[in-house]
């Protein structure tokens, strides 16, 4: 592609792309582009980037932060050096001891040799676990200490690209080992290949009281040839930390001749601990965390601090396991953490202050500098997910599982995220991976049940929840959701059994909620008198003085259920009273002028037919929302339902589409489908109803009456489209589910008439 001949227009390209050309310049530039292939091609190629620059909020934030950082003269990344590793190795013991070295002559060349070749900074080094030649059983636990210290020391700079301890741990587990301490030297080349390392370091410890000697051989990964060896003889006054510093220095000097050691930062004890005892407890804590032994991990990290109250990463881990406020102390001792660890601490600190943007920026920077740290990607993905940036979250978790294919929680998160973007195939793949990695845990099956139920696979979802309960009969989430699924499947006795079982659990909140669940199958079947009785029973349980003292908000759920029942029975005044009760109850948690449930009031008044009152309520709600600058989906739901009741179908559809876009839940989607139906948009109504009915969810269970009536509405849409068989199926389903109903709404009679007519029609 040739260049544009007119420099003036060439210079305008980026200004055009970010809409900074003056109006006249824009006009001239576009006219120029009509004839200049070069400029047109450049702008066209940058189109997607231009859109992000112009429209994407997160990109704007990046620019804002960069500009602010420039202005303040500071940078968000750390200037201090530190390790790029996690401490994840299993220590042999907690005994504190001096470390000795034994000089081995054969087969190593003990002299440090320089080579003709300069080893580029990009060449990566993997440090295998040291051997303890004087005490092979290593009861003093010197091997993990020496190995991890050296990794930390080398990781303080980019002089040598060292594979992190975390990465080694992940590799070991992929090789079905419990940790890298089990990797032996025969596997070194495999490890080097998996970590794309050019060099392998094989170290050894020899302890002859009162001194320690460290030796190591540097092996070329490709050939297996020993490149050179190192040896550090300690004096009686030197501890292991100092010896590791010296060894690190020698390795750096060999691999990066001319490297300025001044850039290496302080001694390794600066970024770990000056206390060997503290450091050992730290390794213990990391290992216990890795095995989900959180109580043990808390104990270990607390012991770290008893021996070294400046150990920043101990505070960090305790802030995650015990008390978030401990991150403040971690920040106070930030200079005592390695490079990647400083990112974690700063991100956690930002989050603690409520600065999620700051936390994300910190982790994004960490992901650039340390792209092989699984934890960085996992944390970043979590933040993206919480901000609704689903695609970015998926990218993060995918990267994390690439780095560690055994990262089961990553697969769990991916399953839900894929489900959120409607990629059922990937969601099911991810959850199946989770099950594969943790077949003896209930949560994978529970997650699988969730994914399957959200994608219309009812029977399989039931099987998954049942599997979870087989492993853990007290897995409450599975029990509740199995109850919902049984309800949808028409297995009412089993559903009732599930919910009844939950009314006996220890957890009071769940127990009280379960009383409401017991009404679900009655609601679904239209046995409203029974549903009312069950709801009243629930209210009786949660309205005792003791229950109210314990948790006054427990009455909220039964009142919400009551709204739906009374609405169906046509008792709108009763339903409105229940709404007001919900407002009173929820108001205890929210400010006195809480806006909650005001949208419900508008909906009920509109459906009652009192359109003027509904309009007044809506106006009041909108005024209050405007005053606080809020625009919740409930507002658009109320606007849409009122328009629907007024017969203003187009306006209803517009408002309800907006509500769905903000909150694609059952209620908003349901009303949108009904608006399409009312507007005569039969195809869209079919698509919308079918989309809702493909999801077996808790909200759909809660709105049992509306959920069943969708069969009736869908039948009407099919009928209008001439899809007789499908219409018959839907009417039949509706009538079948409500065959025992004690409530005779017009829809029930109408469905019978329609069905009869369709069945008679040839």
């Amino acid at each position, binding site marked *: 592609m040739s260049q544009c001949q007119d420099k003036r227009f*060439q*210079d*305008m*390209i*980026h*200004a*055009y*792309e*970010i*809409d*900074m*050309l*003056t109006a006249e*310049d824009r*006009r001239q530039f*576009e*006219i120029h*582009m*009509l*004839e200049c*292939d070069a400029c*047109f091609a450049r*702008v*066209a190629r*940058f*189109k*997607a*980037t*231009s*859109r*992000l*620059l*112009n*429209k*994407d909020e*997160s*990109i*704007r934030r*990046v*620019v*804002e932060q*960069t*500009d602010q*950082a*420039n*202005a303040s003269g500071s940078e968000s990344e750390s200037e201090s050096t530190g390790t790029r590793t996690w401490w994840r190795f299993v220590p042999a013991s907690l005994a504190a001891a001096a470390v000795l070295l034994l000089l081995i002559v054969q087969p190593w060349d003990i002299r440090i040799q320089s080579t003709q070749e300069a080893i580029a900074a990009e060449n990566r080094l993997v440090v295998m676990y040291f051997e303890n030649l004087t005490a092979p059983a290593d009861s003093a636990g010197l091997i993990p200490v020496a190995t991890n210290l050296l990794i930390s020391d080398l990781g303080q700079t980019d002089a040598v690209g060292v594979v992190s301890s975390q990465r080694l741990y992940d590799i070991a587990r992929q090789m079905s080992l419990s940790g890298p301490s089990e990797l032996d030297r025969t596997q070194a080349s495999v490890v080097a290949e998996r970590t794309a390392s050019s060099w392998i370091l094989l170290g050894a410890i020899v302890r002859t009281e009162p001194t320690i000697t460290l030796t190591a051989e540097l092996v070329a990964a490709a050939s297996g040839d020993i490149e050179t060896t190192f040896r550090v003889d300690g004096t009686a006054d030197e501890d292991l930390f100092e010896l590791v510093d010296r060894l690190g220095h020698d390795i750096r000097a060999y691999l990066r001749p001319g490297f300025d050691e001044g850039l290496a930062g302080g001694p390794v004890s600066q970024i770990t601990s000056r206390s060997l005892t503290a450091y050992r407890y730290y390794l213990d804590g990391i290992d216990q965390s890795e095995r989900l032994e959180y109580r043990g991990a808390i104990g270990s990290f607390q012991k770290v601090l008893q021996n070294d109250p400046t150990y920043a990463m101990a505070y960090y881990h305790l802030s995650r396991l015990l008390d978030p406020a401990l991150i403040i102390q971690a920040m106070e001792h930030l200079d005592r953490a390695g490079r990647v660890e400083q990112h974690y601490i700063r991100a956690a600190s930002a989050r603690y202050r409520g600065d999620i943007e700051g936390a994300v920026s910190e982790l*994004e*920077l960490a992901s*650039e500098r340390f792209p092989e740290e699984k934890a960085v990607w996992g944390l970043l993905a979590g933040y993206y997910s919480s901000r609704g940036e689903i*695609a*970015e979250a*998926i*990218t993060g978790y995918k990267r994390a599982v690439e780095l560690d294919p055994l990262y089961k929680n990553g697969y769990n998160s991916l399953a839900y995220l894929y489900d959120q973007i409607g990629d059922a195939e990937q969601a099911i793949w991810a959850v199946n991976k989770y099950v594969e990695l943790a077949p003896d845990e209930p949560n994978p099956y529970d997650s699988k049940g969730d994914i399957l139920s959200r994608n219309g696979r009812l029977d399989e979802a039931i099987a998954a929840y049942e599997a979870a309960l087989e492993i853990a009969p007290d897995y409450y989430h599975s029990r509740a959701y199995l109850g919902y699924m049984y309800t949808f499947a028409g297995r009412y006795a089993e559903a009732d059994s599930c919910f009844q079982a939950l009314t006996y659990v220890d957890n009071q909140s769940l127990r009280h909620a379960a009383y409401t669940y017991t009404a679900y199958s009655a609601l679904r079947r239209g046995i409203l008198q029974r549903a009312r009785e069950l709801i009243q029973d629930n209210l009786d349980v949660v309205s005792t003085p003791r229950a109210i003292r314990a948790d006054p908000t427990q009455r909220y759920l039964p009142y919400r259920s009551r709204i739906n029942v009374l609405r169906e029975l046509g008792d709108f005044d009763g339903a409105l009273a229940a709404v007001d009760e919900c407002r009173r109850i929820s108001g205890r948690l929210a400010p006195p002028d809480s806006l909650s449930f005001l949208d419900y009031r508008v909906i009920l008044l509109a459906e009652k037919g009192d359109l003027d009152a509904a309009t007044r309520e809506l106006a009041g709600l909108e005024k209050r929302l405007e005053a606080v600058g809020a625009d919740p989906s409930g507002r658009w739901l109320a606007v849409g339902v009122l328009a629907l009741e007024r017969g203003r179908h187009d306006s209803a559809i*517009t*408002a309800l*589409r*907006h509500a*769905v*876009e903000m909150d*694609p839940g059952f209620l908003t989607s349901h009303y949108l489908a009904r608006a399409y139906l009312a507007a005569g948009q039969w195809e869209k109504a079919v698509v919308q109803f079918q989309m809702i009915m493909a999801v077996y969810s808790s909200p759909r269970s809660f709105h049992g009456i509306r959920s069943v009536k969708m069969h009736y509405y869908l039948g009407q849409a099919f009928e209008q489209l001439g899809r007789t068989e499908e219409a018959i199926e839907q009417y039949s389903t509706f009538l079948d589910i409500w065959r025992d109903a004690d409530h005779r709404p017009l829809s029930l009679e109408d469905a019978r008439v329609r069905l009869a007519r369709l069945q008679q029609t040839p």
Partner: protein
Amino acid sequence: MDLNELQKTAKKGDSSAEKELFRILSVRFHLFAYHKIWDEESAQEVAQEALAVVAREFKGVEIRTSFAAWAHQVLEYRILAYLKAKRTRDPGGVVDAEQVATDAPDPILKIKLARCLRLVGRANRRYARILNLRYQGFSTEEICERLGVSISNCYVLLSRARTMLEECLEKGEAKP
């Protein structure tokens, strides 16, 4: 490529010239409309409407300036009409869920762009400043005044930054 010549040839009845003329206009109209509307489907619609007017009128209309300028004017009017109608129809800016799905950004590009903006923004601080002021709603003139540069200098600054940004997106590094 001389659009005016192409139009004259097409006007005389040369069907291949006419085909080429509308091929060129079609892709460019779409791009221009997209840079105003930022929605694929709507940009396509507006571009098509403008092309329909051009197709209808180009043989008969007397063009005093240049064909390119006239065709561009046709498109501008269509874009303005679209934006005006959008504001009237949707003062609250209701978002179409389908539209959002169609225009969803490539997440990899977004992450790369974020990274490159940081790198380029640190290496070229004025670029970060210009962009940030633009996001805050300052006009080009106001931004230039704040930076103490002329408008054409501002364009040059942006052009240089774009080169860095483009290289970073392709190669992963930002060299000033």
